[in-house]
């Protein structure tokens, strides 16, 4: 493998060093994912598409339930878990990145260089503190007799506790936006740091005001960071089953909860595997569409 004259001695040493972590990732990630794909295509007697049939025919997974009729015009669609999970993940991603951008911008452009690492350190601290306990605390903050409700009642703004805060998709979105905040801030910050400050001065010398400079210089140049932030928030959020179970209530459960119960409670690994594969494919598809849209947008500008 390492033979051949095209490789330098240094290259060979570097390959040998990389082999242990690489082989480890192959054995514990690539091979297991291959096994999941294999199991998803296996029925009682060998190769079968039955699991995929079940993924798309059971309403709970993808299709959802359609109620009402076309004639009366009161048609309603309760989406299946996969479309709903994609929607929640997209909402989490949009909320997280929109909230994070100004912070990254502030640290990059308005904080003095000597204090930047202190700010970044502060932003990462909550991320490193116990994940489960953070979610428990959001439950306490958003709950019926929780922090927000008791504070609002205490200062007399409301008389009855607000019930739309906990046990629904909003609660999932708030909790996940909090959990993934540093993942959004850091890539955007890195992209903003790379922007040559003289470009911004040049734009302003050429008569742009601060807002148009931001729109026409800073924002397009920060797109790589935004793309990285979107992907690094969107992809993992699909796989979270803890947040939906703790703060999502019965209506807030998502695809990961279904996969989890198929494996650990219902014991139907074939269907669970097929659903995992479909979920991965959906995540990959949404991510690719997003990346290509960004590329086309950037290209159309230049």
């Amino acid at each position, binding site marked *: 493998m390492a033979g051949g004259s095209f490789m330098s001695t*240094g290259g060979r040493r570097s*390959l040998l060093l990389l082999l242990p972590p690489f082989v*480890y990732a192959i054995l514990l990630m690539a091979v297991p994912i291959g096994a999941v794909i294999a199991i998803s295509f296996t029925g009682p007697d060998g190769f079968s598409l039955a699991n995929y049939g079940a993924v798309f025919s059971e309403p709970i997974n993808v299709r959802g339930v359609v109620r009402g009729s076309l004639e009366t015009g009161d048609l309603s669609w309760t989406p299946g878990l996969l479309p709903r999970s994609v929607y929640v993940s997209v909402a989490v991603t949009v909320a997280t990145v929109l909230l994070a951008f*100004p912070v990254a911008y502030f640290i990059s452009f308005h904080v003095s260089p000597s204090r930047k690492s202190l700010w970044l350190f502060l932003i990462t601290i909550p991320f490193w503190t116990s*994940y489960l306990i953070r979610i428990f605390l959001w439950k306490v903050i958003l709950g019926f007799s929780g922090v927000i409700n008791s504070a609002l009642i205490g200062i007399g703004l409301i008389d009855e506790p607000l019930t739309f805060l906990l046990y629904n998709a909003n609660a999932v979105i708030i909790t996940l936006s909090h959990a993934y905040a540093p993942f959004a801030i850091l890539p955007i910050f890195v992209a903003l740091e790379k922007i040559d400050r003289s470009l911004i001065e040049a734009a302003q010398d050429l008569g742009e005001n601060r807002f148009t400079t931001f729109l026409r210089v800073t924002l397009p140049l920060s797109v790589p960071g935004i793309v990285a932030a979107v992907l690094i928030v969107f992809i993992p959020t699909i796989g979270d089953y803890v947040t939906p179970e703790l703060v999502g209530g019965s209506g807030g459960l998502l695809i990961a909860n279904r996969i989890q119960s198929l494996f650990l409670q219902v014991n139907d690994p074939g269907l669970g595997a097929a659903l995992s594969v479909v979920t991965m494919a959906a995540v990959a598809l949404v991510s690719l569409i997003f990346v290509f849209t960004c590329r086309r947008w950037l290209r159309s500008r230049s």
Partner: protein
Amino acid sequence: MTRGWGLRIYALIYLVFLFAPIILLPLFAFNSGKIIAFPLQGFSTTWFEELWTRTTLHQAVQNSLIIAVSVATLSTVLGICAARAGALDDYPFKGSMIGLVMLPLVLPEIILAVALLVIISKVLGISPSLWTIIMAHVLICTPYATAILNGAFQNLDKSFEEAAMDLGESRWGAFRLVTLPLVMPGIISAFLIAFIISLDEFIIAFFLSGNVTTMPVYIWGLRRQSDDLPIIMALGTILVTLSIALLIIAEFFRRRGMRRAGIKDTGGLL
């Protein structure tokens, strides 16, 4: 810096949002009331005392510590390999090989959990144990360790090691005596970060734990008992204090490593 006060206020509000759960944690942990709500009842250390009486919790903590120390050691070693290889010469496919090693960072955890459960229990027929959790955690911690160590290795001046070899040291001797001390702060930092991640990881541990209870799995088990909520707050306070302490140590070593390599630091721990 007179401009941007609006942004500054926004950033401060955002920090409050980020820190809200951590600030509330000790308030409820030292509150004597059984119900987690305002107004607070009074100061009490009951919940911390009760932690001492829970033997199942002690077993879970012990398991988690064994796992976290093993994971931190193994993933730091793998991280050193990957980061060192990254700093050495290029060869075909090196980028994609490193990409694969870093991939667990962005894969949905449920997918990894499912895949590992399938291969371990359904294909290989191994029953879940501490070891299966350790193996899975090493996979997800190695990318973090590699990312931190990349900073240490890539900023290293190659001529130091070459000089040592010119003066008669073997390649290994030069690495041990020259490079290793220079990257040591990065190694300590990577070890601590891997330790924190493993100690806290729940999604995969829950799939692979079987009869073994780790600390997050134990906490998860208490989620429906509202009586136990104050105890979770007390345990959380201890954990948060511990991880902030470890983080400050990790950050201290990371910065010292950067200074030794002689570069200016603007990055964070991620």
